[in-house]
């Protein structure tokens, strides 16, 4: 088949060339219109279900809301885990599905299950709501508004009713969460004394407020000529009008709402806030829809927002753009990577010209590289895979093979052309030269592809990340092979028809002479050679794990996120006060462009954070020259002056990946499962103490925070009976006093305003709660303290579940890059020092755990791949000795990669691991091609197998091997040099490993394998 393809290409060289150009154009077009993203969609499909339960504390929410909902969701098909958090007034459940499922269908299944929730939830609890389906990165753009002229309520109204609809109208925007400002609420503030005086109850007032704002359609009148619609308007459309609504009529006089209550527009109870640059404002957090193009959606949204700026400025509203903008990283990363690759391409062209000394050969070699890569992009775009850090990484890794494919054919054709007689049939020469290398190249490429199968088969988050990389790599390698068999010979036939190439460059000739001397010196010492190969191979294998492993590198983004927690139970205003002081200090750090803070949670927001939690989004200005690491250190220094805060600082990507892995941002955590929360806490505290003693532990904290003070209102049935009070009535009154009861929704033209009835309370102290007056059935007034015990207690602020089991989590952010090593040390220490009660068990998680799982999986699949490669080599060579020689030579090539990583101070991230796999493939390719060439010399050219043949084979392979190494090295050099630049976080370590490995693999295949082969190989003919 290989022969048929090459023959067909040579038969129609112009058609093949035209087709190649067409593919390149299509690829270029696909590249320009490609969906660009930071990462592939790495998060498993999941939905977030939230149910508001106003007035309930965490334990009540757990028992009354979370448990019933978890029960409904249990057993849903394809569910991998259900994680929930019960906090004051909110149950948040995250249902994570298997990656194989269709997210839309799974969402539908959850919706159907939740339809049965109605009768299970307590009165007052809201219906369970599903968050919109968003992409893995979730964040789109965070921006803010502040105003010196508008009140917090007016500013929020403006954003909520005027700007938010415009945001959601942008295609690709899934959600816009609003933090800060104050939500408008029409409050009917009841004076309990006046209510008593009038002999009215709260129920009377609820009814009056409801009826006063109700809109009932008017119908129409029809004259003989016209139909005139009666447009009825609700009477209580304004606070003044609502205060005129009648509650009851006494002795012929109407008692109105205004007689017993004050009606006003005020802020509804708040669970969150926002600061923009230390000033109170509105922070809007948008998220992308599942599958949307982050760059396009960002651009469209920003265009829409920018158009609003002049009108907002007239109202005294300042717009604060891009407080957090992941698209910036994509833009920077893509631009820098593009520049690196372009620089590499220029260097490749120069080297081709310098080495081949022939512009035609250089043209043929070089043109096949972009054609292969553009064809890959075209297919990737066609099947809906975005261009992201990982797919680009796949292309970078494939570069070595693609370059080799581009060089090997042309070099062989040129070598043969130089030695051919004048007037030789050029097409026949090209055919034979091409076919000579095609079969070994095919097997070598197949071996490389098999080496990548373990990466392709990775599961979980690692699989989501690296599968696109593997697909891109395999596609590029496959297409490169196809192009080498078709377009390269065809183009050679067109441009090199009557052309006789110049002699080989003198420096190559000199190198060959030196190579010959080294091989001749080594030939009598096969034991030394073998020992060198074995020792370096073993050293590489042993030293590799010492590099320290971590899942993903630090991403050099322009944004840092600091998660800060105060003690649960802290007042929202205090969090805001402290936050303002922190923001002022952060903004003063050189290199910080903006600081925004979100406190608590938004209504139906994705994060069910309590008011004690805040998130600082710090934008770094790269133009100011301060590095992210330096700024991060400065941020930490600022937080050191705020010891009441627990703080964890992440880059945006690291935060999102951590959350996706396990629901935790931290890179290592231990979940403690057990039915008794106090016992879970005790075990978790022991574990935390053990982990704190490990020198590489950074911040250690318990996820479920310490208890918060609560005022427990325990009704006394005897006293209730004495006064003829029902428990529900008492609780309703308490709710009306300290939360407010929403009794109606006033719908206006473009907005709606909740009508809430509240009891005016004197002062907000625990003492005052007992003085709350209740109205008994017979009209008697009773203070709450007369029918209930009021005690300050310490209660849980948050209860965490995973798969329906209560859990406490010990969270650690290790200070070391060797996360896998830390995880192992932590595991050992915990096993040694912590004694577990019988019904408590532990589960380890985080990036380190995922890294270990991935390494384990990779090892298993690699073993299978190795067997497959051996079988493939056996099939290709047909000699056990050939296969053994390749296998003996391969491990020693690792040492160059290991040395390169160590020299550059890197660690073994999965990106570097992929580099090693690629290196393994490229080294195998070199050795396979050399050994195959020996076969060719013996079988096709009828040479005897001896040192001279081994020397000749090695010499003839020097140019392509060296050229491939140099070209690949030059192409990757800019990527490796800029490995600390944005966009090079994944590709940089890959390039470093490959560069280092190229040195060792080139030396091994050109100097160490030939003398050993001369001794070892046996050929049928010889």
């Amino acid at each position, binding site marked *: 088949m290989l022969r048929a393809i090459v023959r067909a290409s040579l038969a129609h060289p112009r058609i093949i060339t035209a087709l190649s150009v067409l593919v390149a154009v299509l690829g270029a077009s696909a590249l320009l219109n490609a969906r660009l993203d930071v990462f592939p969609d790495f998060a498993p499909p999941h939905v977030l279900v939230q149910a508001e339960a106003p007035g309930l504390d965490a334990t009540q929410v757990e028992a009354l809301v979370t448990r019933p909902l978890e029960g409904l969701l249990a057993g849903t098909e394809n569910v991998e885990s259900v994680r929930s958090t019960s906090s004051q007034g909110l149950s948040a459940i995250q249902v994570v599905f298997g990656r194989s499922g269709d997210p839309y269908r799974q969402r539908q299944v959850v919706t159907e299950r939740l339809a049965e929730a109605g009768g299970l939830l307590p009165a007052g609890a809201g219906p369970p709501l599903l968050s919109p389906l968003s992409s893995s990165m979730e964040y789109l753009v965070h921006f803010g508004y502040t105003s010196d002229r508008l009140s917090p309520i007016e500013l929020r109204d403006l954003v909520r009713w005027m700007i938010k609809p415009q945001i959601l109208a942008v295609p690709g925007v899934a959600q816009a969460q609003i933090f800060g400002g104050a939500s408008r609420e029409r409050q009917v503030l009841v004076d309990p004394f*006046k209510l*008593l*005086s009038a002999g009215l109850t709260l129920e009377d007032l609820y009814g009056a407020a409801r009826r006063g704002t109700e809109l009932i359609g008017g119908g129409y009148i029809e004259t003989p000529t016209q139909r005139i619609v009666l447009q009825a308007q609700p009477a209580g459309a304004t606070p003044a009008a609502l205060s005129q609504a009648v509650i009851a009529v006494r002795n012929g006089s109407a008692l109105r709402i205004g007689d017993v209550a004050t009606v006003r527009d005020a802020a509804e109870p708040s669970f969150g806030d926002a600061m923009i640059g230390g000033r109170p404002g509105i922070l809007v957090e948008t998220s992308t829809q599942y599958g949307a193009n982050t760059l396009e959606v960002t651009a469209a949204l920003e265009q829409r927002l920018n158009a609003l700026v002049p009108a907002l400025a007239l109202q005294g509203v300042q717009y604060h753009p891009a407080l957090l903008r992941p698209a910036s990283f994509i833009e920077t990363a893509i631009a820098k990577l593009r520049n690196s690759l372009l620089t590499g391409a220029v260097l490749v062209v120069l080297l081709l010209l310098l080495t081949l000394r022939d512009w035609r050969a250089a043209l043929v070699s070089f043109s096949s590289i972009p054609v292969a890569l553009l064809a890959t992009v075209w297919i990737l775009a066609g099947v809906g895979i975005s261009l992201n850090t990982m797919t680009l990484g796949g292309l970078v890794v494939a570069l070595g093979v693609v370059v080799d494919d581009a060089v090997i054919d042309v070099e062989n054709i040129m070598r043969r052309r130089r030695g051919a007689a004048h007037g030789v049939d050029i097409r026949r020469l090209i055919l034979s030269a091409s076919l000579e290398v095609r079969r070994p190249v095919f097997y070598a490429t197949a071996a490389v592809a098999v080496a990548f199968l373990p990466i392709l088969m990775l599961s979980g988050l690692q699989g989501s990340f690296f599968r696109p990389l593997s697909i891109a790599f395999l596609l590029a390698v496959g297409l490169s092979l196809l192009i080498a068999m078709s377009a390269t010979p065809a183009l050679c036939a067109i441009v090199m028809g009557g052309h006789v190439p110049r002699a080989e460059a003198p420096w190559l000739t000199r190198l060959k002479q030196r190579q010959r001397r080294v091989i001749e010196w080594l030939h009598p010492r096969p034991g030394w050679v073998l020992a060198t190969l074995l020792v370096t191979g073993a*050293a590489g294998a*042993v*030293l590799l794990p*010492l*590099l320290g492993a971590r899942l993903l590198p630090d991403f050099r983004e322009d944004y840092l996120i600091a998660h800060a*927690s*105060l*003690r649960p139970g*802290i007042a929202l205003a*205090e969090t805001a*006060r*402290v936050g303002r*002081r922190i923001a002022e*200090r952060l903004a003063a750090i050189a290199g910080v462009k903006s600081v925004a803070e979100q406190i608590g949670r938004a209504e139906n927001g994705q994060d069910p954070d309590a008011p*004690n939690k805040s998130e600082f989004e710090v934008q770094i200005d790269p133009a100011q020259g301060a590095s992210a690491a330096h700024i991060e250190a400065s941020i930490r220094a600022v*937080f*050191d*002056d*705020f*010891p*009441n*805060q*627990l703080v964890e600082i992440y880059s945006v990507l690291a935060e999102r990946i951590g959350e996706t892995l396990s629901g935790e941002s931290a890179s290592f955590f231990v979940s403690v499962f057990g039915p008794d929360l106090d016992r879970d806490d005790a075990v978790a505290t022991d574990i*935390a*103490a053990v982990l*704190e*003693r490990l*020198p*590489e532990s950074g*911040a250690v*904290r318990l996820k479920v*925070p*310490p208890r918060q*003070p609560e*005022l427990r209102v325990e009704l006394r049935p005897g006293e209730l009976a004495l006064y003829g009070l029902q428990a529900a009535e008492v609780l309703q009154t308490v709710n009306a006093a300290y939360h407010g009861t929403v009794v109606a929704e006033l719908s206006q033209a473009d907005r709606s305003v909740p009508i809430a009835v509240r009891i005016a309370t*004197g*002062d907000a*102290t*625990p003492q005052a709660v007992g*003085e709350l*007056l209740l109205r008994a059935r*017979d*009209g*008697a*007034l*009773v*203070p709450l303290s007369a029918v209930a015990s009021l005690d*300050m*207690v*310490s209660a849980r602020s948050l209860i965490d579940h995973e798969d329906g089991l209560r859990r406490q989590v010990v969270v650690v952010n290790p200070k*070391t890059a060797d996360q896998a090593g830390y995880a192992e*040390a932590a595991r050992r*220490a915990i096993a040694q020092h912590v004694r577990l009660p019988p019904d408590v068990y532990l589960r380890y998680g985080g990036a380190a755990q995922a890294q270990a799982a991935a390494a384990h999986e990779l090892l298993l699949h690699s073993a299978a791949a190795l067997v497959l490669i051996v079988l493939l080599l056996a099939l290709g060579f047909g000699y056990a000795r050939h296969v053994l020689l390749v296998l003996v030579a391969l491990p020693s090539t690792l*040492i160059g990669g*290991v*040395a390169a990583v*160590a020299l550059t101070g890197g660690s073994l991230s999965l990106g570097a691991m992929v580099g090693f796999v690629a290196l393994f493939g490229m080294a195998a390719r070199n050795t396979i091609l050399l050994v195959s060439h020996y076969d060719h010399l013996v079988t096709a050219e009828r040479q005897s197998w001896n040192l001279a043949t081994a020397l000749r084979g090695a010499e003839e392979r020097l140019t392509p091997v060296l050229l491939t190494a140099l070209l690949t090295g030059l192409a990757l050099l800019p990527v490796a040099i800029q490995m600390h630049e944005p966009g090079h976080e994944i590709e940089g370590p890959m390039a470093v490993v490959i560069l280092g490995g190229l040195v060792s693999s080139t030396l091994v295949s050109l100097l160490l394998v030939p003398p050993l082969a001369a001794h070892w190989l046996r050929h049928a003919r010889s």
Partner: protein
Amino acid sequence: MIRTRRLALWACIVVLPALALADADDDDAPPARAPGAGLALTSAQQEAVGVAVSHPVKGAGPRQIEAYGLVLDPVELVTDVGRLAGSRSAARNAAADAGRVEGLYKNGANASLKALQLAQASEIESQATADAAAATFFQQWGPVAALPEREREVLITSLSEGRAVLVRADVPGRHALGAMPSKALLSVDGIGVAARLLGPVARTMPDLQSAGWLLEVDHPPSGLGPGARLRVTLAGADVAGLLIPTAALLYSDDGAYVYRQKTATSRDGKTEFAPATVKLLTPVGDAWLVSGLADADNIVVHGAGVLWSLQGLGSFSAAEEEHD
């Protein structure tokens, strides 16, 4: 640790790979600081988080009780006074008549035993009526009944002429009144009007389930008439204590407390703070009068939430972390 590994790595690459296997053991690490470090802040931290301390101020103020007032109808008082006087007069007359009939009967004058018995029955009935009227009056108008005759007459005249009103101030849920308040202030459409405390009323008001005091308001605002309900603030005797701002107070299951600055600093030069339980006496504007502190104490008056948060976060404080 990382650096050590790198050195080891290079040593291995250059010298002998087998020697590279030495792994630093985490168990040899120095022990971390003890958990549960005290509440201590450096001056920079205090400045950053906005912690401010101050001495509490000596002060005194009345205990205040919020009460619900009802303007009483003077007609009822006049009626009850009339009924009391009438019944007493009737009782006196009945007693005199019974005495006269008894004298006649004893002297064999024109009085039968039946007439004597009728007169004695009438006397007992009148006395009972007078006693009931008196009891009712004392229950309802006890403080008025307790007034000297002359004063009561003046009061009734004032009430009748509209120059004064009587207000019953009730404290819902209270069945025992305790010490007599010293002052009373009525809120009439938001305007404070002083009232004179006449004394406690014996009868509980069923719809409020409360005990109350009777107040007299001289020269009441025009329009304030019987049946009107008012908010009343009753002020008890002054109590002495220390004034602290409301923002300094925190609440726990042990009651209210504040953070007090310790006099000595910690070994590392930090200022230490400790919670101090206080007894809340009475609110005074935006402050509370408390006991349990000394006026020389330095109390955290601003930023107490910071210390509370620090105390709760315990041993895993970010301040103690060593960052890269």
